[in-house]
């Protein structure tokens, strides 16, 4: 019966190598030493991200995002990056404005969810200058999980029969036990991942609160991992509740302490997203010339995240956003 079934495959390009033995060879030589990894965003990006690399960003578009790293990637003018558009919203707005991306694995892009679409990201994708391969949110999650598990693929039951599959790089297989058709999603081992966390120690042992999206798998799957953190905590705090460790030190290459570092995004339990600012950004994007000026002022002309935050209201703004997060802003 298996003979009868025709097994299809997606026709688009795979932007990363799923080979598990090649990944193992890299991980064999990745340092497992528990040493102080605290540094600056500038140093982390300079040292760990190369032009042409495959880039992934933790969190969820405008929730718990490592803004300092995104801005630094733009300021260092990193080029020809492949990017996982795994509900990519404000993170993608920044990378597209910086012209950093030329290959895009798409699950959800150019939109900002209930806030509407990004004219600038849309222009970039409609220009034909970025190579596009289609996936889905679960597919990218499972591709990252396959890598975290040390595999070259994971089977799943979504996407089959659609054009999303047709324009992906997936392949159909059969279950050897039931003969059922499955899609095989190729493992995604990113070169670089940046993840913003609530707290971590100097070694990179981290706590995250709220939805975790794919970040536990991402920290394990990526070859180089940078954490930005709201605050650095003592190692004793990690050892007090070992079941609560979200990311362990051996996954992490660099730790950057960036209080309020998800701004203008939402940081659960800390501060809500700056909706007025995100709306302003979307509006200005309608006029490419105006947006160039705006983006220059916001990113190229600020030398680090603290300057950027200061430019947009600083701690006073955060105090307001904290009240919104805590539902205590109602008069």
């Amino acid at each position, binding site marked *: 019966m298996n003979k009868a079934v025709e097994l299809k495959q997606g026709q688009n390009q795979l932007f990363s190598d799923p080979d598990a033995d090649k990944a193992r060879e890299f991980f064999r030589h990745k340092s497992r030493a528990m040493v102080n990894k605290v540094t600056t965003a500038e140093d982390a990006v300079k040292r760990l991200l190369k032009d042409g690399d495959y880039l992934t960003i933790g969190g*969820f*578009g*405008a*929730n718990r995002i490592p803004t300092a790293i995104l801005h630094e990637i733009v300021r260092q003018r990193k080029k020809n990056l492949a990017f996982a558009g795994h*509900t990519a*919203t404000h993170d993608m707005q920044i990378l597209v404005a910086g012209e950093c991306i030329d290959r895009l694995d*798409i*699950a*959800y*892009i*150019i*939109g900002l*969810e*209930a806030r509407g*679409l990004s004219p600038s990201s*849309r222009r970039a994708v*409609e*220009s*034909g200058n970025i*190579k*596009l391969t*289609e*996936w*889905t*949110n*679960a*597919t990218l*999650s*499972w591709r990252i*999980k396959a890598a975290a598990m040390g595999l070259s693929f994971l089977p*799943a*039951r*979504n*996407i*089959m*029969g*659609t*054009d*999303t599959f047709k*324009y992906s790089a997936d392949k*159909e297989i059969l279950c050897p036990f039931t003969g*059922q*058709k*499955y*899609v095989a999603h190729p493992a995604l081992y990113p070169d670089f991942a940046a993840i913003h966390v609530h707290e971590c120690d100097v070694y990179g042992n981290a706590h995250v*609160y*709220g*939805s*975790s*999206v*794919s*970040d536990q*798998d991402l920290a394990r799957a990526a070859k180089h991992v940078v954490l930005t953190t709201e605050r650095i905590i003592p190692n004793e705090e990690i050892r007090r509740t070992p079941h609560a460790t979200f990311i362990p030190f051996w996954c992490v290459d660099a730790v950057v302490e960036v209080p309020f570092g998800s701004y203008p995004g*939402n940081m*659960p*339990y800390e501060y*809500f*997203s700056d*909706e007025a600012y995100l709306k302003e950004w979307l509006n200005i994007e309608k006029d490419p010339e105006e947006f160039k000026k705006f983006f220059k002022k916001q990113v190229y002309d600020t030398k680090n995240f603290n300057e950027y935050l200061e430019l947009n209201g600083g701690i006073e703004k955060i105090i307001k956003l904290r009240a919104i997060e805590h*539902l205590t802003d109602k008069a």
Partner: protein
Amino acid sequence: MADYNPMELMICVAARNLEDGATVVVGTGAPCAAAMLAQKTHSPNLCIMFEAGGIAPILPAMPISVGDSRTFHKAILATSMPDVMETCQRGMVDYTFLGGAQIDMYGNINSTMIGDNHAKPKVRFPGSGGANDLASLCWRTMMMTPQDAKRFTDKINFITSPGYLTGGTSRYDAGLPKGTGPYRIITNMAIMGFDEETKWMKVLNVNPGYSRKDIQDNCGFELKWAEKLVDTDPPHADELRILREEVDPHRYIIGR
């Protein structure tokens, strides 16, 4: 003149389809409003899930992102996207809601692009996000959408999320889980289901103020019709009161 607008009607009708004790994955906007309305009326025990990981929250306000703090406010669980999607894949999730730019007679939905060149689309949309996954893995998919002949088309440009594909058993032959598929399409004019055999879209209820002709004229393909066509039960006063006062007091959604 009816004392409610089309969005209010669609939300009230959608909410009635969510029985108590069921599980539903929703996005932001109207689907979330429908789930909240169901909870505050006949389904206090409805389990609301968000694809980014928030499950069974006590929603203090309409989320602006399916991953923002509201989606797991005082929630039972704040987990990972794979855990949510695997819960769907395991068969534990009853309903989901999708939106899109185009839908065809088999309930296939396009939220990816307009045009015929994928590499250089005429108009690009966000893409699947979790839509394809939820349409593939949840038991019953529903859609709330204004109806017109361009949106309801037999020339869909791109199948982002699977309906019944080419009808009949094609959805299951393709490998998607048995027994899943589109369930209700709720528009400003009517409520559609799908034919048991052919899986072709079929009108079940006609909304107040619309005729069979209105419904067919605003659909790009030939619709099937239920044996006995029943008028849609319009929104009840208590549904509207709760929707307006408790679910969406700022009229973010019902004000559209």
